[in-house]
């Protein structure tokens, strides 16, 4: 009977599937080129559906990848994913006092509809992102510029009085409120990218959010690629822009972005050859990839820190000794090697190492010191220490880490810490309202400069969320920005780092990495803030 045959076949296939070793990741060509020709299309796992493709409205990392293909800022990362190279700006000069930046735009710079890219385009774009009516969430990225914050708050209504000036069609001048050593770094962020105002105005006006101008048939951008297709929650397709000024350097002809949210699904897509690069890799797959597909595994450093906020307004955490005891009473190496295991480095200070800055500050002490501090604070061997909660957002990984820490603190210090998970927004709200004792947190750099890891600990900063405030610290933060030299500035950051590791308003755990699966023949430069320069992404051979 037909049913028997089908049943047997199904069982046989399932059995065989279990015995066979995992299939090697595909490198099959999907562009159908002649045999031996190098591929020019890319299937890229992008993690989530982008909110929009308007660089002045979006805030996320998946948006970052696509926006960097469609638009181009004044400066960009170089071929190795580091450094500052000319992009929409051909050259620039900085005044002696560090307050005036003058940019000369590329002579051949063009929008995808053929219009030349002018200084006026940039200034009008800056006006748009700073318009209170648009309510752009990243408007404050432009705050170093004279009048920018005031214009955004509605206190200044004449944009001509801000520090953005058109000197001529190809020359743009920006005047800052104070010297900002990391300005060029921060200009690689899409908040500084230009948009094509004539197109935007055709579709509802400059201050309307989410109009149809970012749809494929209406889209105009100045980047190496143009938007060809946007199927929500399915794929976004971009193809080479025929008018891009540096077209000869662009080797890819087509990129397809897949918004796959489930990381297990994404990994399966990689194994079927549907994706050439995933956004993430499930933690429990890392060991398998290391062992069997090491040439498809990449673990890149990511400029970010995984830490635990400490609510310094809640006893007994008001006592610095208790906070230091907690920070010293855990074994970071164990967590990094056994629980997470994706090449992270244990963190003993506030700021991960980067080319311009390696902090020498470090959490001082060891387990013995932790026990001594706890006893000194009135809780010898943890006796009398109240049960405190360890808040984290819903995730298997955070839960594992929280439970490991719970164990460590119990064994090492004799105290009782209870992991509590909350849904994402509830968890964020709990942190904002100081409704927690310890809370898991992450912070990733917006730009490659230590300032982004120190300014959140300013008294009352919207991202502080610990109740910590220190007048010396705030003063040093200002001093750093006014420092006479880079070396002096970095020395101040080291002092601030030391202060933080003495006060412990947060417990650093590890510095992030980004692990992903990638086709071995894809050349994809490492970038510590996940901002690709698509000109330098290509297939080898």
């Amino acid at each position, binding site marked *: *009977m037909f*049913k*028997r045959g089908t*049943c047997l076949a199904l069982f046989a296939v*399932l059995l065989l*599937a279990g015995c*066979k070793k995992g*299939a090697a990741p595909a490198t099959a060509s999907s562009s159908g080129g002649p045999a031996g020709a190098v591929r020019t299309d890319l299937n890229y796992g992008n993690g989530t*559906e982008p*909110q*929009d*493709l*308007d660089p002045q*409205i979006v*805030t996320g990392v998946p948006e970052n990848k696509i926006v960097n293909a469609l638009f181009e800022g004044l400066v960009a990362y170089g071929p190795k994913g580091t450094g500052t190279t000319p992009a929409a700006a051909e050259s620039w000069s900085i005044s002696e006092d560090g307050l005036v930046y003058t940019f000369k735009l590329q002579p051949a710079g063009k929008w995808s509809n053929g219009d030349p890219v002018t200084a006026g385009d940039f200034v009008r774009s800056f006006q748009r992102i700073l318009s*209170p*009516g*648009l*309510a*752009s*969430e990243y*408007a*404050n990225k432009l705050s170093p510029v004279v009048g920018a*914050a005031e214009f*955004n*708050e509605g206190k200044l209504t004449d944009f001509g009085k801000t520090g953005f000036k058109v000197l001529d069609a190809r020359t743009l001048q920006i005047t800052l409120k104070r010297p900002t050593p990391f300005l060029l770094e921060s200009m690689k962020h899409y908040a500084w990218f230009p948009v094509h105002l004539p197109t935007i105005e055709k579709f509802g006006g400059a201050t309307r*959010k*989410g109009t149809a101008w*970012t749809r494929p048939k209406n889209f105009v951008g100045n980047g190496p690629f143009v938007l060809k297709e946007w*199927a*929500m*929650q*399915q*794929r976004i397709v971009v193809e080479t822009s025929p008018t891009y000024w540096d077209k000869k350097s662009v080797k890819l002809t087509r990129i397809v972005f*897949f*918004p*796959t*949210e*489930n990381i*297990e*699904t994404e990994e*399966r*897509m990689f*194994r*079927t050859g*549907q994706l050439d690069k995933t956004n993430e890799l499930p933690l429990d797959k890392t060991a398998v990839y290391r062992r069997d597909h090491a040439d498809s595994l990449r673990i890149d450093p990511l400029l970010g820190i995984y830490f635990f906020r400490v609510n310094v307004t809640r006893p007994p955490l008001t006592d610095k000794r208790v906070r230091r005891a907690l920070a010293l009473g855990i074994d970071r190496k164990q967590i990094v090697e056994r629980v997470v295991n994706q090449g992270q480095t244990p963190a003993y200070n506030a700021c991960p190492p980067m080319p311009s800055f390696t902090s020498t500050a470090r959490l001082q002490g060891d387990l013995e010191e932790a026990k001594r501090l706890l006893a000194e604070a009135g809780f010898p061997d943890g006796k009398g220490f109240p049960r405190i909660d360890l808040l984290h957002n819903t995730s298997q990984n955070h839960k594992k880490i929280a439970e490991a820490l719970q164990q460590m603190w119990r064994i090492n210090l004799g105290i009782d810490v209870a992991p509590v998970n909350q*849904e*994402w*927004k*509830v968890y*964020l*709200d*709990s942190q*904002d309202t100081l409704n927690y004792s310890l809370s898991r*947190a*992450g912070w990733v750099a*917006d730009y490659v400069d230590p300032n982004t890891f120190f300014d959140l600990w300013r008294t009352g900063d*919207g*991202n502080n*969320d610990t109740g910590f405030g220190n007048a010396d610290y705030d003063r040093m933060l200002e001093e750093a920005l006014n420092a006479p030299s880079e070396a002096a500035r970095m020395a101040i950051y080291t002092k601030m780092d030391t202060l933080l590791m003495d006060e412990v308003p947060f417990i650093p755990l590890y510095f992030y990495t980004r692990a992903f699966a990638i086709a071995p023949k894809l050349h994809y430069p490492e970038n510590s803030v996940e901002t690709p320069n698509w000109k330098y992404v290509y297939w080898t051979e």
Partner: protein
Amino acid sequence: MLRFFASRLVQSLLAMFVIITATFFMLRFVPGGPFTAEKAVTPEILRNLEAHYGLDQPLWKQYLDYLGSLLRGDFGPSFKYPNRTVNEILADKLPVSLELGVLSLVAALLIGLPLGTIAAVRRNTWMDYTGSSIGMVGISVPTFVVGPLLVLVFGIHLRWFNASGWYSFEDRFLPCLVLGIAYAAPISRLTRGGMLEVLNQDFIRTARAKGASEIRIVFKHALRGGLLPVVSFLGPAIAGILTGSFVIETIFQIPGLGREFVNSAFNRDYTLVLGTVILYAGLIMSLNLAADLTQAWMNPKVRLEG
């Protein structure tokens, strides 16, 4: 009959009004909002955002404004996806969920009916036991296990299908199969039960005595009666399959409404939550209304008590 329909309609509209009001206010009282983010925006920017979306108005005014826009058929902009209106998102995604639902149901029937019928006809033989076991496995093993397993076999090893997506025609196969298997199991057991009951009736014995072939007995005589339990199961099953496809949509990255229904709550996307709630409530209430009307038409007692 008309009075019955009118009274049922009024009840449905009243229920809808309560649902909209309750959802609207519950959403506002939950901690966290659409702009609560890991990297907090400055208070000035938050003020701009709230002004832009009318969130700085008193709550009662926002509620009335929302009701007004509903009457115009406008569900509002999405907070999470500023590029799309809620109307657009619903219009894009509902057909996908419907297609997934219908195809899965077809798959479920194609698998479940034959399995159940054969189990009944060849009762207490190895075919019956195999069919029942497959049914039991189908009910017990969750879709998020079956799904990746089938992707492993058919996608990764055999390279017949993609691991995810809803782009080409072949992409429909695996997700509908997985969801279909989940529903095939109860369908096969119900079919078996229904068929067994019918096959024991006298008129079947008569047909056999008259010399009718097994095939003729099953298809011409027994099936009509044997499928009754399946038909009454299909009612709630259709509602379930349309609204409960969240897991399948997540595993296979299908741009359907089930996922949006859940994610919009996580994102505190006020307008999209309300839009999906209204849509589903409307769908379920219409199905119930249609069922009530059909029953009333068939059974006068129901409409007289109505």
